[in-house]
Structures are given as structure tokens and as C-alpha cells.
């Protein structure tokens, strides 16, 4: 008997007797002898619950989390406050432990949550239909590519360089199998270059991809970009930051066919990158090519309202090699957090939170731009994130500045040079509602000192 098993000696005797074997080993006799391990696998001994807790806590203590420093890191995942109610709901066995609602009669809770989630996502994006979640942002974008491919069978994708670098790469990886070419359109003053965009799109293009706001925090003119693509018969995919959609126009109003995105900022923890959820919404004409689970409304034998998984003939368990996606286990629990978060914010809260971010971000942008050695990378409107460049020596210089700030308990943001060589000494700064004016002022002070120190050292050694 190990930690979570329950076979006592008495049980074992009865069970072997009932089965009609002498030993457990006999049950494994279908495994060829040569393949049966004749040793214990090489792992440490098991531990008591308290010991495992202590070990995992010690590992946690080796990380500097957003609980430990004043962090302005964003770049795709954001340190928004997760209301305590969400922890409670996600911790309820009834939501935490069941699987996909294959038996709707005893899964009305999960199914209704999906239905509510779909409604909320449609409201946010302004599109007709939503599924019940996909893995996360970048693979959601790749899934939109696959939908486009299934729709128009064309062979080329055009993607704005303003899309998150992970998403661009995921699209490349996952579309390589079915043989797509992926062309990137550069940015100018922080947004997708409209001329290069128009030039890149022709009738061979299956889909175009634009981020809103883009990776540099800039608000794109999605409507204009979409217009060009639609004219040439390409599907328009927008990857949107859902928490900006109380402020920014709904993609569905701007000619977008599919709106996807990363859901982490909606009530999900940072979790070093996952699990979170991706959302996937589209115009209704695409519904039968959508990936993943979709909940729908129906009635029971007594005429009571109820919910079921529906349109399953799209899915792998029914259609197998003809399925519109291979996804099976998705991110139901994270999507639950998402819809609860949106309801917690509520209609007005979404807007108020957006306005708070816009104002504080504008303030932070001004304050940082006022520092010696800091310059804006672009002048576009932003919601909660903006890009500056530091007057230091490329990525390494930025990293040294970040180290100095970390020593003072401040994390100024994401070093853009990691993924954008063209902004080698760039810094991407995110302002969530958890970063107060005092925090921003502290950032300015600490960053200012760190920059001065870095330039002193570099000056001295030069």
C-alpha cells in the first residue's frame, strides 16, 4: 500500500482469490519478460505530506515572484489581482475534479459554465460564436490558422510582427506540417506597417494575423488592416488582449473573422506561464470548423432547460482523421476562472479597470520618458503597456540594469532585445491595477538610479 492506494493484506488475499491468480505479478504476465523491469526505477524514496510541502516551498522560495518584488513584467501575461472568490470556486471538488462533461445529466454545472463563458467571450469580441476554450494564446492563434486553411485551402499566412513572438513561432511550428508559408510584416512607429501589409497580401493568402494591442503595447488600426485583407479574400484573425476590450473597439465590429487570445489576464494566475486558457471566437459561418468543445442549450425529457456538448461531429472522437482539430482536454477550469472574473468585473468594472490602466499607463509613460537615458520606442496610443529604449549597451546593458533594479526589489519589465533584435535596448513596461502611482514613482527612481550607475560603469570602463 502506498500513499493513495487502499489494498490491505486482507483485501489482497480476497482479490487474488477472486481473480484466480497467485500474485499481482501474474497479472503482468502479458508483458514479455524481457520488457519487465527487474529493478525499481531510479527515483528518491517517497516522502510524507509535510516533507513534500517543505520541499516545494523551498523551491518556491528560490523564485522571485510578483509577491516578492514590484513587477512591471507583462509581455503576454499580466499580474492582475485574482479575486479570492475564484480560488474558492476553482478549489471546489465539483469544478476541480470531474473530466469533460460526457454525461450531461450530472455535468450541468460545468456545461452551463461553458455556455456562460461562450456568451461572455462573444460579448467581448463582438463575434457570433465562441468555443469553450483552447490551450492558450499562441496555440489559439495557430488553431485559427488551421481553420483558415480548412476554409479556403490557400497556402500562405501573413502575420504582423506586432504579434507576440511566441504566437508567431507557434504558428510557424504548427503550420509547417500542413505546408504553409508564413510571411511577416514589419512595424513602423510601433504598429504594423500599412504599406508592407497591403503589399504582402494577395489572393494566395489564407489568413492574416494582427495583434490588439500589439506586443509593443500599441493599439493597431485593426479596421484598416482587416479591410485590405478581406478585399483579397483572406480570413482576418485578430489576437486580442481581452482585458483591453472594455476600452478598445470589439474586433467583430472591425471586419475580423476570428478573434483569439490569451485568457490569463482574466482571473488566472501567472503560474510561470500556464495553465491559463486561450479563447477562440468567430463569425457564425465558421462554427462547424471551430476547434474544441462547444456547449449548447437543449431540453431534457421533462422539458427542463439544460446544456450539452454539441456540434461534436467537428471533433476528433467522432470524426477522427477528418476532425477540425485534434484537441481533447482543453482548459475548462481556467475558462471558469475567466468567466467568473469577467462577471466579477461586470459591465462597468471592465471599463473602469480599463480606464484606470489607461491613465496610470499614460502617467508611467510620461514619468519614465522624463528620465535621463529613457526614450519612447513609439508614440502610439496604449492601454496597459508601453515600450521604451534605454540608453545602454544593447540587451546586455538592459539585463544589467534589470539586475540592479532587482536588487532594489523592482522588476522594470521585459527586455525587448530577447525577441526583437531591432529593439535591442528596448524595455516593455506593463501597468496593471496592482501597480499604484507610488509603485510607478518607485520604478522611476530605481530605474533612474540603475541607469545612471550602468552608464557610470560603462563610461568608466570605456
Amino acid at each position, binding site marked *: 500500500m502506498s500513499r493513495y492506494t487502499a489494498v490491505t493484506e486482507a483485501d489482497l488475499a480476497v482479490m487474488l482469490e477472486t481473480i484466480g491468480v497467485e500474485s499481482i505479478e501474474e497479472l503482468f504476465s502479458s508483458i*514479455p519478460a524481457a520488457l519487465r523491469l527487474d529493478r525499481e526505477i531510479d527515483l528518491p524514496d517517497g516522502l510524507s505530506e509535510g516533507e513534500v510541502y517543505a520541499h516545494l516551498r523551498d523551491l518556491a522560495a528560490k523564485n522571485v515572484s510578483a509577491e516578492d518584488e514590484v513587477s512591471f513584467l507583462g509581455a503576454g501575461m499580466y499580474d492582475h489581482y485574482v479575486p479570492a472568490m475564484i480560488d474558492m470556486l476553482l478549489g471546489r471538488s465539483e469544478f476541480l475534479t470531474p473530466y469533460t462533461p460526457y454525461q450531461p445529466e450530472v455535468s450541468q454545472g460545468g456545461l452551463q459554465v461553458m455556455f456562460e463563458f461562450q456568451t461572455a467571450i462573444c460579448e467581448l469580441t463582438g463575434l457570433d460564436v465562441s468555443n469553450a476554450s483552447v490551450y492558450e494564446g499562441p496555440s489559439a492563434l495557430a488553431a485559427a490558422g488551421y481553420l483558415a486553411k480548412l476554409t479556403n485551402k490557400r497556402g500562405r499566412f501573413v502575420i504582423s510582427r506586432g504579434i507576440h513572438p511566441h504566437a508567431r513561432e507557434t504558428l510557424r511550428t504548427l503550420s509547417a506540417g500542413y505546408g504553409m508559408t508564413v510571411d511577416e510584416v514589419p512595424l513602423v512607429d510601433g504598429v504594423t506597417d500599412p504599406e508592407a501589409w497591403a503589399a504582402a497580401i494577395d489572393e494566395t493568402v489564407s489568413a492574416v494575423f494582427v495583434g490588439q494591442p500589439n506586443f509593443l503595447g500599441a493599439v493597431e488600426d485593426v479596421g484598416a488592416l482587416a479591410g485590405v485583407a478581406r478585399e483579397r479574400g483572406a480570413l482576418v484573425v485578430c489576437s486580442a488582449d481581452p482585458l483591453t476590450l472594455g476600452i478598445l473597439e470589439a474586433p467583430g465590429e472591425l471586419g475580423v473573422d476570428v478573434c483569439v487570445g490569451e485568457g490569463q489576464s482574466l482571473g488566472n494566475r501567472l503560474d510561470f506561464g500556464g495553465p491559463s486558457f486561450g479563447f477562440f471566437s468567430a463569425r457564425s459561418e465558421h462554427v462547424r470548423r471551430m476547434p474544441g468543445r462547444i456547449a449548447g442549450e437543449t431540453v431534457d425529457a421533462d422539458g427542463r432547460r439544460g446544456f450539452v456538448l454539441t456540434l461534436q461531429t467537428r471533433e476528433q472522437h467522432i470524426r477522427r482523421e477528418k476532425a477540425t482539430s485534434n484537441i481533447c482536454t482543453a482548459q475548462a477550469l481556467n475558462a471558469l476562472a475567466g468567466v467568473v472574473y469577467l462577471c466579477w468585473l461586470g459591465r462597468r468594472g471592465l471599463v473602469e479597470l480599463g480606464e484606470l490602466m489607461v491613465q496610470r499607463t499614460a502617467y508611467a509613460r510620461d514619468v519614465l520618458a522624463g528620465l535621463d537615458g529613457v526614450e519612447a520606442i513609439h508614440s502610439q496610443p496604449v492601454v496597459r503597456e508601453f515600450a521604451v529604449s534605454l540608453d545602454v549597451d544593447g540587451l546586455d546593458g538592459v539585463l544589467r540594469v534589470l539586475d540592479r533594479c532587482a536588487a532594489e526589489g523592482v522588476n522594470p519589465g521585459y527586455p525587448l532585445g530577447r525577441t526583437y533584435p531591432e529593439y535591442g535596448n528596448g524595455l516593455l513596461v506593463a501597468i496593471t491595477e496592482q501597480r499604484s502611482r507610488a509603485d510607478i514613482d518607485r520604478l522611476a527612481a530605481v530605474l533612474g538610479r540603475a541607469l545612471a550607475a550602468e552608464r557610470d560603469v560603462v563610461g568608466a570602463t570605456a
Partner: protein
Amino acid sequence: MSSGNGAVVATGAGVQGGGSTETAMQRARAETIFAKGAPGRRAFVAPAMDVPVRPLDELIPARLRRAREPRLPEISEPELVRHYVNLSRRNFDLDSGFYPLGSCTMKHNPRLHERVAGLPGHARLHPFQEPARAQGALELMWNLERALSEIAGLPHVSLQPSAGSHGELAGVLLTRAYHDARGEQRTKVLTPDTAHGTNPATVTMAGYDVVKVGIDANGGVDIEDLRAKADTDVACLMLTNPSTLGLFDENIEEIARIVHDVGATLYYDGANLNAVMGKSRPGDMGFDIVHFNLHKTFTQPHGGGGPGSGPIAVSDRVEPFLPHPVITRSQVGDGEAVFDLDHDRPESIGRLRGFQGNYGCFVRSYAYICSLGAAGLRDVSEVAVLNANYLLAKLGELGVLDLLTPAYGRVAGAEEDAKRQWGCMHEFVLSGAPMKRELKIKTLDLAKRLLDHGVHPPTVYFPLVVEEALLIEPTETETRETLDRFAESIAEILREAREDPEIARGAPYSTPVRRLDEGAAAKRPVLREAL
């Protein structure tokens, strides 16, 4: 007072001296959150606006701004909590009863895992935190990779894939990269008829053609058919072993030989790894690529359909193509080990998703491995197999197997009168065909009637190769009493159906809703609340 009927008050009519005792509350129609609240209500209170406020038009031009607010609910915090607490009570879950959903490994989810995953040092760690300040996370991932590698018997691991099918896609793309690097253009991937739907779906998404391989009388891969189809156009064979029939393919060595002989890779769908941990290793069987389902074998809670996590382990020849970043460990002398993320992987297939994978799941599964250790993991598989065989035998004892017959799994060389005629690994498949014929109830009816017995039904109508299939996986965390009670429930339902099949056909009766009309839902899809 809520339309999401609570736990304590059951839905449905009772009778008292002729009159119905049903109340309005019990009759109420399910209402979504969008039907609740009132304009002006709120749960969220924003932090104070502590910076100088500038006109919004100055910051974001009106034409980029939203014209019409999203119509999210307006609801107070107490209302919101009640809505979702009440909804939760309309779910069946693993913490309230037996959940022998075959192929899904619904094992106990220890709460320790939720606690450690919730530590702020893990839960509030930003994925772009500089590796020097995320050493604990990287060390954890490294340790988990090493443990999974040892369990699989394959040297290299990537934790990146988000679930099993994502791991499959990674695996097939790795196969493609492997062949590409050798200058070969292969076009086909083999999958047996017992394969899970994600296997063929993955093959298509990765740009290959699916070629189906038959199964033999024992449910294993039909060796002759395999031989016939294994040519140099074949890139890969995807296999689940034990298969989705719950049977270990005894010809696995021969299968591996055939596949490798034509230069193809052998892919192991690890959904059934719970049967063989510490007993036998896919790497030793000859597999090149394995995916794990942390949400099955390593007890990441299923969450109502995710999150999951689908790490892959691979052989040396596949390693160069692994998704990046990969975790590295370096140590100078006996100084502290330093962990880092290596993005500089020129042959990598690239990323499959953002960041480093579902770290929160890694924390849980790593805690599980720490708790159990080597002997504990072996015990898991031993008891998983013991429990399945016991349940099968118990059903036999109760005479159930005449109506629900094992389709495959006859014990090799069992004497005619041997007690043990049928065997399995950690799960087994029964066919409801005789039941349907004789009692006029379908597997679906049996499943729905089981709901009234307070258990979640097994997987039904999968695998496809078995008519009226019932795929039963009890897992190792269940007690003998629970298995006995389940067997008795099945026997009871069959007895009852013999007397009155209408009862099962009308089931369930005691659930929040009765049988739902899935056809209507698909015919006229209503996929969101109309506002």
C-alpha cells in the same frame, strides 16, 4: 432561492396525500448569470484613481475606442458566489463518488498538490522572470524531466505540450523533422483501429495521411496487416500500449522491429501509462517518442476538461528537434547547480505554445512523484491492474459477463475450467451487445441508469472496434468495497432491466436534469445566451 438548485434541496416532485409537494423553486428553469443581477450592481471595486486624469480622447482616439460596452452581467459579489456555488452542485465529481471513466485515469487528486501549486513563489511567478530569479521553477522542471525520463526509459524530455493531443502533435512534427533532416519525404502514419481519436486527428493536422492497421483476435496490432502496410512511405506508427482495450500488446518487440526496419518512428500514446509505471518502460519496448498525460497518470485534476499537460520523452535520435527552450543544468565543482533556458536550438521544430508549458501542472505532478517515490509509483500500477482485474472477476462472479461480454482479453492458455478466463491491465472493455439483444437496453441506458446509483458511468462507445462498448478503468485509488458496490449496481441494473427495461431506458431519475436531447442541440445550435 436560486435556480441553480442547491445540494440540500432536491429537484422534482414528491407526493403527500395525493398532492404534489414540489415548490416553485424546484420547478425553476436554469438561469444563466446573464439573467441575474441588475443595472448598477457590482462586485468589483476599482483601486483609487491616484494619477492625474487626462481626457481619454487625448490618450486613445475615439475611433479606436469601443462604441458599445460588452453586456457583461452586473451583479453583487454575494449573488455571484451563490450562482457558481450552486452551479458546482450540478456536477458529479471524483470527490463524491466512483468515476471509472475508461482511458481517463480518474484517480484521486491529493489536495497537497493544490496547496503547493498555490504558493505565491510558484503561482505568481512571471514566465518572463529572468532565469537567475526563477531557479526554483527551473530546478523543479529539471527534476520532473529527469523523473519522467526514468519512468519512460527515454533520455530526453520536453514539458512544453499542453495536453496529450498536443504532445501527439509535437511527436508527429518531431517525426517529420527527423525524416526531413534525413532528406526523406514520408507521407503516411499508421494507427491501429483501436486508436484514440486524437491520434488520427493529429496525423492529419501534421500533414500526413492516416493509414489504419487492423487488430488481431487478441486486440493487438494485426502483425500481418502491419507488415503489409509498413513501407518506406510510413513516417510513424502511433500506438497505445496497453491499448485502449486495456491489453498489453504481446508482440510489441516484433512491432517495433517492423516499424524500425522501414525507418519509421514508433510513437507511444501514454494515456495508459498508469498500467505499467515502474513495471515496464516504453523506451525499453522500442518507442522513440512518448507522451505523458500529467492529468491522468500524474493526477493533475481534470478541471471539468482541463487544464492538462502532455510532456514528451524522446530518444537520442529525436532529441535535436525538440521544441525550444530546453532546460539546462550546469554546476561548477560542487557549487550550487545553475539552471537556464536554452533557446539556441537550430534544429528545433520551434515552439508549440507560449512560454514553458503548464507549469502549475508540473508542480502538482512533481509533488505526486515526490510523495510516492519509485516504490509508490510501482504500487500505483500494480494496484491499478489488480483493481481492474478484480472488478472484472467480480462482475464474472455476479454473472454479469454473459450480458456484458469481454470483447478481448481471453487469458492466454487458460484451461476451459480455469477460474480466470479473462484478464486485462488497468482497464477493460465490455460489449453490451448481448444485453442490447436480450434485455433491450443499450449501453447508453445502462450508463444513464448508473447515474441513479451515484456513480459516474464508464466510457461508452469507445473503443470503436467493440460494439456497444463500455470501457471501465477503476484506478488504483479505489477501495475494494467501492468496486464491489459498483459490480452490484451493474448486476442490479441488469436484473431490473430484465423485469422492466423501461426503467433503464428512461433513466436517469435522480439527477438535476433528466436525459437531455442532444440531437436538438446540434440541429438548431444555441451556443450563447441571447441578450
